[in-house]
């Protein structure tokens, strides 16, 4: 049975305190790294562990760090703590329950790329996480784990906790940097604005998600071999119509069925499974025929979806899928930054169509129209926000066509018991 690494102590109330964290082996990895390992050795360990970014895009972390020019005079580490992907609650939990695990990962990442200043871009609504991180930073600074000459080495690092102000798009990496520079969170053009080479203030920047950096702590603490033998582990946020919603740390590649039915207790009230988003509402909807898909990057890509942020939103047989997709579209409409036309206009138009279908005023040609707008938004949006809309919309039109038909034909939902 693989051991839990990232969430091992999250139910221990005193884990957020630095004394307890140290007693349980905390900061040993950072201390050893700064005294005995070269930055290159840390990047190699992360490579060997096969770590991929857990913010949603799944880009190999070590490779990302190697893009940062070695000899650039000023470099930054920025932590994406702007968790907002619907269904995802892993980063908030990690920060509230084990903030030092993140700080240790920040020290390791900063040392690996040679940054002396790191920013945590924390979602504005995360008041509990803010309190814990403020305290954790103060404690770590007091002990000399942050600041000048960390652990008596010649490496120095300042960590600034920065608070966002409510905008889902700020979770997109280049939009996050705009926001951190005090502007509207609108994405930047890539190229040239790849954060690793032209990031914060146009300087090379390693931008990593909270969970990713917690993995880094565990990889350096235990070594990449042992880490990999534990799965490697991934955090799944499971919610919706399951008996035991919650945060699950499980090996990458666990079948979707096992995750939902063994770990999350199956569908509540003895009902049948109908559909789920496997990696947040931006990942393509999956249905019963996909239940045996292994929850890993490649397998989910093969069925047209993605592991994303690991947020599994489960829906039972009583769910009106038209309503679910309508709500998802409304979310992207409201959170669209307005920079590009397909996303700004497409989401508004889709929403109008969904509104009339749900109000019983749908037209026969609306289904073709939905399909056509989805097609025209695919590959044409400036950033992943708009691109997140078409896959699930099209999947719903494919798998739940009869539900759309019923709404249009009868003006009502034909699902047993609509939500």
């Amino acid at each position: 049975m693989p051991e839990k690494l990232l969430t091992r102590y999250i139910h221990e109330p005193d884990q957020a305190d630095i004394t307890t964290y140290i007693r349980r082996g905390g900061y040993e990895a950072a201390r050893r790294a700064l005294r005995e390992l070269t930055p290159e050795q840390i990047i190699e360990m992360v490579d060997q562990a096969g770590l991929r970014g857990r913010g949603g895009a799944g880009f190999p972390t070590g490779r990302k760090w190697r893009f940062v020019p070695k000899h650039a005079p000023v470099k930054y580490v920025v932590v994406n703590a702007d968790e907002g992907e619907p269904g995802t609650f892993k980063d908030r939990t990690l920060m509230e329950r084990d903030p030092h695990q993140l700080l240790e990962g920040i020290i390791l990442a900063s040392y690996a790329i040679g940054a002396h200043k790191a920013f945590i871009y924390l979602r504005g609504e995360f008041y509990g996480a803010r309190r814990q991180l403020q305290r954790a930073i103060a404690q770590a600074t007091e002990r000399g784990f942050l600041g000048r000459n960390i652990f008596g080495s010649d490496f120095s690092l300042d960590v600034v906790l920065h608070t966002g102000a409510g905008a889902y798009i700020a979770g997109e990496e280049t939009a996050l940097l705009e926001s951190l520079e005090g502007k509207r969170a609108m994405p930047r053009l890539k190229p040239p604005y790849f954060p690793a080479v032209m990031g914060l203030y146009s300087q090379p920047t390693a931008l990593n998600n909270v969970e990713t950096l917690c993995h880094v702590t565990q990889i350096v603490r235990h070594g990449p071999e042992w880490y990999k033998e534990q799965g490697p582990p991934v955090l799944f946020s499971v919610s919706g119509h399951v008996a035991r919603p919650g945060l699950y740390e499980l090996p990458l590649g666990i079948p979707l069925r096992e995750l939902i039915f063994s770990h999350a207790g199956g569908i509540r009230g003895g009902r049948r499974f109908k559909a789920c988003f496997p990696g947040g509402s931006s990942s393509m909807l999956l249905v019963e025929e996909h239940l045996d898909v292994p929850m890993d990057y490649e397998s989910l890509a093969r069925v047209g979806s993605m592991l994303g942020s690991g947020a599994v939103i489960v829906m039972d047989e009583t769910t009106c899928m038209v309503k679910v997709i309508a709500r998802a579209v409304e979310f992207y409409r409201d959170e669209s930054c307005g920079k590009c036309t397909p996303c700004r206009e497409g989401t508004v138009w889709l929403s109008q169509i969904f509104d009339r279908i749900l109000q019983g005023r749908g037209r026969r040609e609306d289904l073709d129209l939905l399909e056509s707008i989805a097609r025209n938004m695919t590959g044409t949006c400036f950033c992943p926000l708009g691109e997140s809309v078409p896959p699930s919309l099209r999947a719903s039109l494919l798998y739940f066509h009869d539900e759309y038909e019923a709404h249009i034909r009868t003006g009502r939902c034909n699902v047993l018991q609509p939500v």
Partner: protein
Amino acid sequence: MDRERRLSEKAREEIRRLQGLYPQARSALLPALFVAQGEEGYLSEEALEEVAELFDLPLSEVASVASFYTLFHRRPVGRHVIHFCTNLSCMLNGAEEILAHLCRRLGIQPGETTRDGLFTVKKAECLAACDIAPMMLVDEEVYGNLTPQKVDEILGKYREEGSG
């Protein structure tokens, strides 16, 4: 004679301190807007002007930034702001009915403030607590696994504090 200032000297000092945390002072704009909002409970035109001065930015630029983010209030809000999650996981767990119950109890629609000025209710997107859906945030506190009865209890608690 200077017009009356909206930002206290303490708030100005705090904003200057925040500007010093970053290689470029402009990065402190969002944190500064939170400080300004703390003064009056919302961001008045005058407060935005004063923030703009402190950053040597045009008012239009600061107003544009402030209007982009949902946590900045451009109009006065109630003493307690309720962010009620209506996104997928909460919706699947009955958020609509609970929100309707909450609004009935307060006699307002989402986006409005009660006449006594105690509560403002806002619909919110996923607040990353889907394991305890349906959930809401009252000011800085998270309340989950909501039922109509639980909502009543929570409202009662804040009302008591308000009258106490």
